[in-house]
């Protein structure tokens, strides 16, 4: 078991080391940009090369190398000791500027990054967001102006001359924000300047190629002016270096002369080499005299932005070697659930017989800190992996070999009301009774869930517990509506020809002495299903399909929420009031749950409880209910403001649109616990091993509730919230568009009038509910800025 904890310890050490090294403020962000950008390029580059020989020739290997090299040089310039040295020596600063303006941009353009980076984007993002924006006349005009060589030349001259004016230069040294502006402007000017020189595909040539010679030589003049000023000036240009240079034993004037030399000699060479190369290519190439330059494309055209037919077979997660093959096996999936059940049993036993200090008990740490954080990340990054590995349904999967349920779930209870009520009860109990701080309570909740799930599913057919009762399952399924993958039919035509519908009904196994392959226990018919709602990713449908036509494929996260259309097993989502209420509970509950751990709320509740002699448990529980009701009222009032559809439909659409925001709040909340509370798992595991006499080491971090939040955590939380709110507002816009079009469709078919749904109308109808969602976001933003109070665990403030 200690080996199991070793990676956690190693991770802790790495994080602590990173914190101690105190990386440059911008370093993690530069690195993140580098990783995302390189991954996009590599993905797109590979995809383009797969399109044929011409593409392979155009995007040959050295272009990829150039892209990586550009990023490497950028990291050396911005996130290496050079960045630090640049503040102490002018020569180092000059090298940094040289890299940003003269090395990174040409390398970047040599990689012809437009097509690969666009191709690397998810298809939906490329075609639905980037495509329409780039095609907009205003954007095209802007691009046309920005890519004019004159603009690039002026920009380069301005940054070269402007940033070397002593007052401006010293301002950048003094204020990090201005320093970043300086570097960004240098990089931007460099990119604009080098674009017509390198002419990356699909750049359209504006000037004759030979015009680039005076263009480059003239640019060298501004470079020479600054270099000459620094070289021949008898005085120190920048006072900052005079003070520091003296203390470091460096002659500041010599440093200035060295900087001038770097700027003058290598700088001029970088300008003049391409000028010479262009001249040589033009005049020395065989037969080039009098021959016109090759025809350039008249329009800036990016074929990747044009709508191409969808791929015949979508990329399926279940076709990934090894993992896909394993996941397709029912026994492997059952094994996964049984392993999780064994872990749950271990946690429950420790919860009952172990010490009742939550941070020292498996039941006080693993389910609350680690599992919740892991589950939310896994669901939002891939799909509903949490339900797939659910230990609660493991006993039923085994026992159903001998016990076949015959009853069907009562028609009156076939809704989400029970699950919704249980989620509210769960949130209230969590706050009122501090469930996370009681290993004993946690153990009995776990046992209760397993018993309830087994009893319900042995009495009633299908997966009635998951579909109608399980509050955890409903929470996870709502989260997975914004997941990037969905269980879907790979080829609609195969499903159209299928007459057996085994994915729904199940079928006998073709292997002797093996149990029947069940169909979807939640009543979802795969070809008619839209979105992840009610899908537990049990993958029974995958095993049951005789055509191997079901997979886990990429979808646009949240698109099914915007459509709110008819789906198998659910009906029309926009008309399901119970699901609308469930979505409201999901979002408002997330905010209430997070607010309950913020110090000001805890303090106010404690003060009220003391002053009015009210039970703190009652007060905390009431706070959750009141906060959720407040949020629900906000969404309902926004629904009143929108017209053109029945109230229930309007409310449901707004509530469904709030799910991405709710998901980001859960991510922020559980992610915070996961990151700051991960050592508790190690302490609890050490304690268990020590108690079992498997290790002589007693836990050395007793009651280690939390590590200090790293500096990047709060900005990352706000970024997650920003993404959540932006996604929610986007879903809302498309949902209102769908609602108005549906109404228009009904009107036009009856009265032969034309549709009145315009983007402007949609946007006007969007404003009121958008304000409601922004109000919910602002509440969560306030919570994130507050110090956190971890009641029930060891002391941790802010």
């Amino acid at each position: 078991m200690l080996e199991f904890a070793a990676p956690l310890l190693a991770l802790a050490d790495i994080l602590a080391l990173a914190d101690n090294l105190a990386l440059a403020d911008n370093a993690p962000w530069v690195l993140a940009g580098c990783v995302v950008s390189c991954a996009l390029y590599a993905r797109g580059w590979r995809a383009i090369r797969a399109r044929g020989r011409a593409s392979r020739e155009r995007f040959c290997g050295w272009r990829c190398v150039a892209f990586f090299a550009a990023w490497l040089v950028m990291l050396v310039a911005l996130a290496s000791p050079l960045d630090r040295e640049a503040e102490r020596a002018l020569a180092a600063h000059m090298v940094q500027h040289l890299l940003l303006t003269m090395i990174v941009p040409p390398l970047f353009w040599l990689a012809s990054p437009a097509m690969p980076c666009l191709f690397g984007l998810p298809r939906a993002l490329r075609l639905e967001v980037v495509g329409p924006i780039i095609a907009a006349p205003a954007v095209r005009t802007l691009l046309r102006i920005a890519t004019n060589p004159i603009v690039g030349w002026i920009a380069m001259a301005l940054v070269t001359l402007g940033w070397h004016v002593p007052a401006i230069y010293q301002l950048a040294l003094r204020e990090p924000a201005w320093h970043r502006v300086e570097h960004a402007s240098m990089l931007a000017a460099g990119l604009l300047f080098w674009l017509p020189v390198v002419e990356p595909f699909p750049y359209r040539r504006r000037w004759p190629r030979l015009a680039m010679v005076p263009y480059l030589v003239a640019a060298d003049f501004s470079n020479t002016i600054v270099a000459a000023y620094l070289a021949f000036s008898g005085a120190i240009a920048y006072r900052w270096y005079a003070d520091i240079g003296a203390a470091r034993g460096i002659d500041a004037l010599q440093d200035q002369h060295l900087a001038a030399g770097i700027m003058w000699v290598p700088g001029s060479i970088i300008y003049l080499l391409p000028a010479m190369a262009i001249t040589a290519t033009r005049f020395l190439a065989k037969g080039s005299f009098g021959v016109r330059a090759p025809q350039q494309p008249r329009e800036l055209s990016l074929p990747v932005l044009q709508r191409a037919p969808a791929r015949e077979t979508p990329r399926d997660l279940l076709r990934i070697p090894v993992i896909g093959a394993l996941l397709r096996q029912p026994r492997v999936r059952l094994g996964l659930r049984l392993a999780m059940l064994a872990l749950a049993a271990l946690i429950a036993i420790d919860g009952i017989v172990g010490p009742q200090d939550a941070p020292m008990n498996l039941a006080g740490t693993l389910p609350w800190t680690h599992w919740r954080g892991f589950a939310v990340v896994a669901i939002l990054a891939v799909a509903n992996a949490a339900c797939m590995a659910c230990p609660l349904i493991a006993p039923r999967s085994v026992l159903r070999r001998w016990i076949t349920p015959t009853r069907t779930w009562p028609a009156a209870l076939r809704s989400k009301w029970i699950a919704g009520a249980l989620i509210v009860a769960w949130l209230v109990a969590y706050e009122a009774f501090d469930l996370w701080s009681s290993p004993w309570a946690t153990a009995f909740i776990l046992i209760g869930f397993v018993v309830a799930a087994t009893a319900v599913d042995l009495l009633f057919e299908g997966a009635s517990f998951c579909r109608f009762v399980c509050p955890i399952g409903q929470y996870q399924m709502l989260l997975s509506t914004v997941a990037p993958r969905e269980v879907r039919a790979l080829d609609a035509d195969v499903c159209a020809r299928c007459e057996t519908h085994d994915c729904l009904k199940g079928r006998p196994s073709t292997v002797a002495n093996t149990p029947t392959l069940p169909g979807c226990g939640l009543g979802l018919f795969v070809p008619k299903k839209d979105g992840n709602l009610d899908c537990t990713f049990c993958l029974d449908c995958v095993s049951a399909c005789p055509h191997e036509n079901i997979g886990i494929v990429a979808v646009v996260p949240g698109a099914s929420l915007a459509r709110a259309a008819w789906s198998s097993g659910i009906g029309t989502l926009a008309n399901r009031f119970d699901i609308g209420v469930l979505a409201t509970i999901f979002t408002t509950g997330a905010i209430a749950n997070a607010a309950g751990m913020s110090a000001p709320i805890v303090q106010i509740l404690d003060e009220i409880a003391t002053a009015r002699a009210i039970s703190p448990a009652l007060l905390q529980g009431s706070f959750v209910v009141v906060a959720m009701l407040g949020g629900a009222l906000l969404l309902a009032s926004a629904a009143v403001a929108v017209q053109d559809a029945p109230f229930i439909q309007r409310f449901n659409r707004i509530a469904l649109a709030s799910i991405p925001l709710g998901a980001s709040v859960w991510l922020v909340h559980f992610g915070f616990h996961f990151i700051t509370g991960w050592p508790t798992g190690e302490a609890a595991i050490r304690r268990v091993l020590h108690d079992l006499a498997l290790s002589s080491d007693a836990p050395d971090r007793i009651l280690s509730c939390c590590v200090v939040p790293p500096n990047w955590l709060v900005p990352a939380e706000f970024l997650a919230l920003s993404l959540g709110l932006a996604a929610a507002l986007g879903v809302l816009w498309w949902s209102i568009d769908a609602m108005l079009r549906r109404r228009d469709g009904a009107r036009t078919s009856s009265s032969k009038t034309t549709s009145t749904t315009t983007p402007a109308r949609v946007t006007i109808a969007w404003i009121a509910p958008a304000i409601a969602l922004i109000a919910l976001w602002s509440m969560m933003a306030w919570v994130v800025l507050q110090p956190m109070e971890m009641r029930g665990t060891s002391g941790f403030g802010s």
Partner: protein
Amino acid sequence: MNAQRGQRIVRRADRVFMHARALAFMLACMLALEAVMSAASLADGGIVVWTGERMGARAAVIIAPAAPSVGEVEFAWIGAWKAGALVHAQHLDGLAIEGVLAPAPIGSEVRCSLALTKVGHWDITIDPDGNGDAQAARFPLEVSDPPARWTTLWPAMFAWIALVAIGLTAAWRKTTRRDS
């Protein structure tokens, strides 16, 4: 048939080799990045607040941020120093904070961050040899109220405005094209 199969196997092996090569290249790049990153240093900016001669050599003190406010303030000593070098900060009302200067990942600099918790006038003393007042450098420091926390977080906090603007533009364009 066998020849075809052989060719297919060679093609597959080629593809695997190409992917392995690309992966190795990416890994090498990432390792290089890691090496570069691990040597990177603290936040930049600041202002020279003191220069003079101590321990027989020129010395300077840089503090960051340039306009200190309540919270962490970094003191960097550039010049000669000995182990045990200290920075001592005393507020007008008597509150005193002390820290040990430690080598910084640049040149021979030493630095220390102190959490200055009060607004107002502080007297700072940097003792580069840790032997008391003889070699100490003294200078005053005015510490202002801390800036509102959102002022440092606004790019992440309001990133949604840019995202919504982009999304709205795209949606508008898409629906306009669809309707026309």
